[in-house]
């Protein structure tokens, strides 16, 4: 389990100070894939760097698996319940128990794939044979055994990130920190890295903390998500809940950015004939959630209330195994019938938003 309590970090930049992380508290369960999303400058990268103390926080508490309680006061790091100053050796041991991957892979260009993965194992007390065995085990895990003697310059972006993952996991850490690990990759490579991370999570019970600015990444593999803005965590919860019921403006914005239904705003702005409504017609957005998708609500209201429904956009996705989605449609019929139909939908846990009235 990762427990972050009241973590703060301020940078001094040319006379002014920047509060990169402000009083953040988070709990991440073992085996979770936890996403942290925010725009650049929101402090998410600093937050994740504070977890393995690449960045020393100003204050706060950290507890990461068996690392023991780490207390930071006034930019000084203390270890254990009796708060002794943390020694370099303890710090390095703690870092070895946390893997990390980066946006730009950060492989050693003058070392082969094998040597890169062996890097964290050298001087760890393992024999050459043990190291070799472990490296091959890791390369097998990321499906790159045949590239063992290649240099990074001979690999594609996705392959480089695989090597980086193998290197990060070489010490068998229980936690993997991923700092925008897919942001420099093309969509295919992104998908393959995400599914690799998902399978590592399932196979090894690896806890993954994903930093990203792409809601699609969160949607694809995370179970829980925290939204950061201006150094603070403004909203957090299960990915399904956040997508189904975003509360903060920034969260709504992120959710909308990942939703196909969002295109209706563009259509409306363009005055597209697709969303033009005649007299007595309503342009509505219907949002379904896990309780309402699958019911035959549309055919039911058109039958029971004698309204006609013209679907403009529709999208249903599966998040955490549960469906989530909605549609934009034009509803036509007698005014009171239409209102009754929308009320009925509302009663059946479909969120109704009227976008335009004819």
């Amino acid at each position, binding site marked *: 389990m990762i427990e972050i309590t009241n973590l703060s970090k301020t940078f001094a930049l040319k006379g002014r100070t920047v509060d990169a992380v402000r009083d953040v508290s988070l709990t991440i369960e073992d085996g979770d894939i936890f996403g942290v999303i925010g725009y650049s400058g929101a402090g998410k990268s600093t937050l994740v760097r504070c977890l393995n103390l690449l960045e020393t926080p100003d204050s706060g508490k950290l507890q990461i698996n068996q690392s023991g309680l780490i207390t930071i006061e006034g930019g000084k790091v203390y270890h254990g319940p009796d708060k002794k100053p943390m020694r*370099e050796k303890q710090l390095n041991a703690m870092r070895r128990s946390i893997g990390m991957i980066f946006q730009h892979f950060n492989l050693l260009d003058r070392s082969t794939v094998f040597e890169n993965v062996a890097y964290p194992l050298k001087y760890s007390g393992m024999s050459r044979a043990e190291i070799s065995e472990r490296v091959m085990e890791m390369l097998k895990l990321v499906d790159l055994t045949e590239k063992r003697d290649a240099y990074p310059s*001979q690999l594609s972006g996705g392959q480089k990130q695989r090597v980086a993952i193998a290197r990060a996991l070489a010490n068998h850490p229980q936690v993997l920190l991923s700092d925008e690990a897919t942001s420099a990759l093309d969509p295919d490579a992104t998908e393959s890295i995400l599914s690799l991370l998902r399978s590592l999570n399932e196979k090894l019970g690896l806890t993954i903390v994903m930093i990203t600015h792409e809601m699609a990444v969160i949607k694809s593999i995370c179970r829980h998500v925290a939204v950061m803005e201006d150094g603070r965590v403004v909203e957090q919860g299960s990915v399904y809940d956040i997508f189904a019921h975003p509360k903060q403006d920034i969260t709504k914005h992120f959710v909308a950015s990942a939703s196909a239904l969002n295109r209706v705003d563009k259509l409306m702005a363009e005055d597209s004939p697709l969303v033009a409504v005649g007299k007595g017609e309503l342009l509505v957005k219907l949002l379904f959630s896990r309780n309402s998708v699958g019911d035959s609500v549309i055919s039911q209201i058109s039958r029971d209330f004698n309204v006609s429904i013209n679907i403009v956009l529709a999208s249903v996705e599966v998040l955490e195994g549960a469906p989530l989605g909605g549609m934009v449609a034009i509803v036509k019929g007698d005014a009171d019938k239409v209102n009754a139909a929308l009320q009925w939908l509302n009663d059946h846990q479909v969120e109704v938003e009227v976008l335009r009235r004819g």
Partner: protein
Amino acid sequence: MDEFLKQWIPNVIAYKSRFLTSLSQTGEMTLRSGLIAFAIGLALGVVLTVCKKDGIRPNAIIYRVVDVFVNLFRAIPFIILLIFLIPFTRMLVGTAIGVKGALVPLVFGCVPFYTRQVEAALASVDGGKVEAARSMGSSTLGIIFRVYLHEAVPDLIRATTITAISLIGLTTMAGAVGAGGIGSFAINYGQNQNHQDIVNVCVIILLVFVSLLQFLGTLMARRTTNRGLFRRGDQK
């Protein structure tokens, strides 16, 4: 062959043994002071890189001391440095003249230049690689040797080549403290005695030697970019 040489470079042949001695003096000065300067410059370059403000072990005091030392000695023209250091040299190695006496000023003239070159080479190592090594729990020494020095090898080879060439240039001035060498040979036996052929031969020898050094350096730098030196492997 002998007849041919006697016709074209008569004075070089006449002073053949002195010529060879001065060549070996230049070689000795370059190699000995070069090796010492290589070690010291590399160490100081690493110190500057590690101790700078956003380095892996920031230390303002050490950084400032090395920085000021480097700047001071870079500002002094070598021929002045040569005489300025005479008392210090005498104290350190017992004499201020001859090849031995020239070594100290040569090292002092070379180290600041090389230190800056090393610092620049190490600065070209992507900070992300250093960060990755830190995230893997690598120690300070581990990061210095296995990331900084390891990744910067091609740039360090280039820096060393440039420094070695400039060092050869410095040794030609060492004649001022009686260290001999090809520079003082060209002046004393060439220019002063009006033997233009001696000057010409000295120029050609230096030219060949410097070109060879540059060629070797460039080759090795290219061979080590993005891979090990003695390994096969197709490069893109």
